[in-house]
């Protein structure tokens, strides 16, 4: 009881204080203060800065016309001109033009509450009046929804013209049994060209080199090191392995090959993508050993005929980044 009384007194006291402060402050708006700081010195200074800006600007034009448009000099001329202009404007705003501090009332969005509320009520009422006398509002609403849905579909449908149907497009690949492997200059890749530890970018013969599924990395390791799964036992003749060059994480080109020079103390041979360092084990047939990639690097079975490298079948999985619906582990 007494506690409540004390709390009440406190509130009364606070409200009184607030009221007194408000009353004291009434009419004590900071009066617009106005100073006229202009002096001959400041005016001369600003004039000098402006003339300097003009000279530097003209220098830009001259450099452009006569000095082969040297990028550095042009940049400096433009920067000096603009910098002097900035200095002139800022000095002028502080030391030449009248300095004043004004106070302005803000437009009120919420206060006084009653007035605003009345306006809101007015708008709401007006909106509601628009549907006066209609009995089957639900029906009309639903029909309107149906119209919007249909028209929306009609408006969105042409967007599909932008691209071809996905279908199997993301799985297309030039690799078939017997397709020759060629290098960047379209010359056939010979098995003897590659030494142990070598790394070569190769393509399917006759394919577009920009085709994501065409590019390969061909590497050579010692055949006895291989730990390929049994069904891939004959995919790497003479220790020659081929993988898709496109990382299965974010489809950057696999451009790094780590081949240990001292196998006892180094991790095994691996292909590394430079974008996010997804790392694939070469000996085990491209399984991921580090980094954000999940699917293994697709491997291409190889065969050697008359010394030339040929595909012995299609790639072991989809090329490039995973998409919703791609089969895992392939």
């Amino acid at each position, binding site marked *: 009881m007494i506690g409540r009384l004390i709390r009440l007194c406190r509130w009364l*006291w606070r409200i009184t*204080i*607030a009221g007194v*402060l*408000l009353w004291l*402050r009434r009419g004590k708006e*900071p009066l617009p203060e106005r100073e006229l700081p202009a002096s001959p010195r400041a005016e001369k200074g600003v004039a000098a800065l402006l003339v300097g800006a003009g000279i530097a600007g003209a220098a830009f034009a001259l450099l452009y016309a006569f000095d082969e448009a040297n*990028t550095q000099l*042009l*940049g*400096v001329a*433009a*920067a000096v001109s*603009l910098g002097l*202009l900035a*200095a*002139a*404007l*800022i000095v*002028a*705003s502080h030391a030449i033009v009248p300095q004043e*501090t*004004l*106070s*302005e*009332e*803000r437009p*009120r*969005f*919420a*206060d006084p509450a009653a007035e605003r509320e009345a306006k809101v009520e007015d708008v709401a009422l007006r909106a509601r009046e628009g549907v006066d006398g209609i009995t089957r509002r639900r029906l009309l609403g639903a029909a309107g929804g149906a119209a919007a849905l249909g028209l929306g579909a009609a408006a969105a449908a042409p*967007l*599909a013209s*932008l*691209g071809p149907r*996905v279908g199997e*497009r*993301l799985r297309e690949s030039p690799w078939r049994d017997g397709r020759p492997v060629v290098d960047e200059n379209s010359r056939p890749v010979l098995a003897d060209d590659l030494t142990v530890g070598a790394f070569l970018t190769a393509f399917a013969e006759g394919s577009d*080199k*920009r085709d*994501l599924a065409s*590019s390969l990395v061909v590497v050579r390791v010692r055949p006895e090191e291989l730990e390929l799964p049994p069904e891939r036992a004959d995919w790497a003749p003479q220790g020659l392995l081929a993988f898709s060059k496109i990382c299965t*994480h*974010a*489809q*950057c*080109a696999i*451009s*790094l090959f780590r081949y240990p020079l001292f196998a006892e103390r180094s991790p095994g041979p691996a292909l590394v993508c430079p*974008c996010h*360092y997804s790392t694939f084990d070469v000996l085990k047939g491209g399984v991921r050993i580090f980094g*954000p990639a*999940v699917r293994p690097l697709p491997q291409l079975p190889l065969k050697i005929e008359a010394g030339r490298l040929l595909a012995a079948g299609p790639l072991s999985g989809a090329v490039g*980044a*995973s998409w*919703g*619906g*791609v*089969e*895992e582990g392939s």
Partner: protein
Amino acid sequence: MIRRAVRALDQRTGAGSILGKALKYVFPDHWTFLFGEIALYSFVILVGTGIYLTLFFEPSTSQVVYHGSYAPLRGQEISKAYESALDLSFNVRAGLLIRQVHHWAALTFVAAIVVHLMRIFFTGAFRKPRDLNYYIGLTMLMLAVLEGYAGYSLLDDLLSGMGLAIGNAVALSIPFVGGQLGTLIWGGRFPGTEAFMSRLFIAHVLLLPVAIGGLMAVHLAMVATPHHTQFRGRGRKETNVVGTPLWPAYALRSLGLFAAVAAVLFALGGLVQINPIWQWGPYEPYLGTNGAQPDWYLGWLIGALRLMPHFDIVVGSYNVVPNPFWGGVLFPLVVFGFLFAWPSIERRWSGDRAQHNLLDRPRDNPRRSAVGAALFTWVATIFFAGSADRAFVQFGVPYEGQLWAYRAASFLLPVLAYLLVKRMCEALRRSEGHPGEGSAPVVVRPAAPQAAGRASPLIDQRPTAGHQARSPHK
């Protein structure tokens, strides 16, 4: 002379009274209010230099053999887009300068928006009646990042191609529709068809800039209508705005800032090389380079792609959510989602639904400042993780160790930042010190004891008379 011009205008448009008001329009002064202006002026310079660049750039992927003035590339097959960008850099007078100014302006534009966003967040400027405008600002930030990405992807050099490969992978990773969406936008499987280049070009020079420009106009109008916010100080109330009138001092100062921004950008564009595309060479899907980095505003996404452990969501034998989704889509959605949700979260937490025209200092609201510090620390940690490959290539810091350190840091540092900032704000509030502030706001302390212990920490406990009278705080 001036009178005649004003009269002529007024008689034809009736704009006399509006002009009179506009000249006396009051801007509150504070250095932190300038970041938005810097973003605005960077955008103006982007539009100006960008128009110049479109006159020379050819958005085409058709292949030509290079015979231009950069000897190391002669005889190579490159795209027309890359060739026109090389010619623009080497053969067009002032072309390289303008291209570099454009690139620097883009970096500055996004940076200024981010700092501006932090100012808005930590001073509570996003509160009613400005929450709508805050959402518009966030939308512009997203568009600006997209616009920058589209811009440097147009050149068809090695780096831009690698960026697009990742972008395509992120598009493909969207559950259910990713395959269709990626194929649709690129006109086929990556690297896509000729049509993709023209789509990217139109997005960069028309759709995105018009969207940003339009939103910017609305943004400025919505700043002007309720007037700019102001910090507490003598004579400053919720109901007024105290500051410098537009004419003459503020206009001169703002134009001065414009000239200064332009001066810095031209100095950078002239003297500091950026994106020397001739060194990267043309892009082919089978080419890559170690230590490649995007423009800075994409660093946080690269970092997220790096840090995410290697898992997909697989149902049966079908991959439903491929890995790039986590870092490339979900992470930015979470960050922006949180920023969009924050005004309503804070309203709910504090129960404060009043209109606010007076700004908080960061200490005035320890919880908000701590949450903001935690969020920005989180994003910054992941941003730095994006540079792990450079630390590896340049300094030989083991990559795997860095990754684990960053993963731990992305959990620990935000918590530390939260606790540290909260403590600091509370200590500052208690001491009422004003580090580095000359003109301390007058604090009116009624003699009555404050109910400090019971009040919500989100409620400002330093009521000035005007503030207390208007606040509906319980």
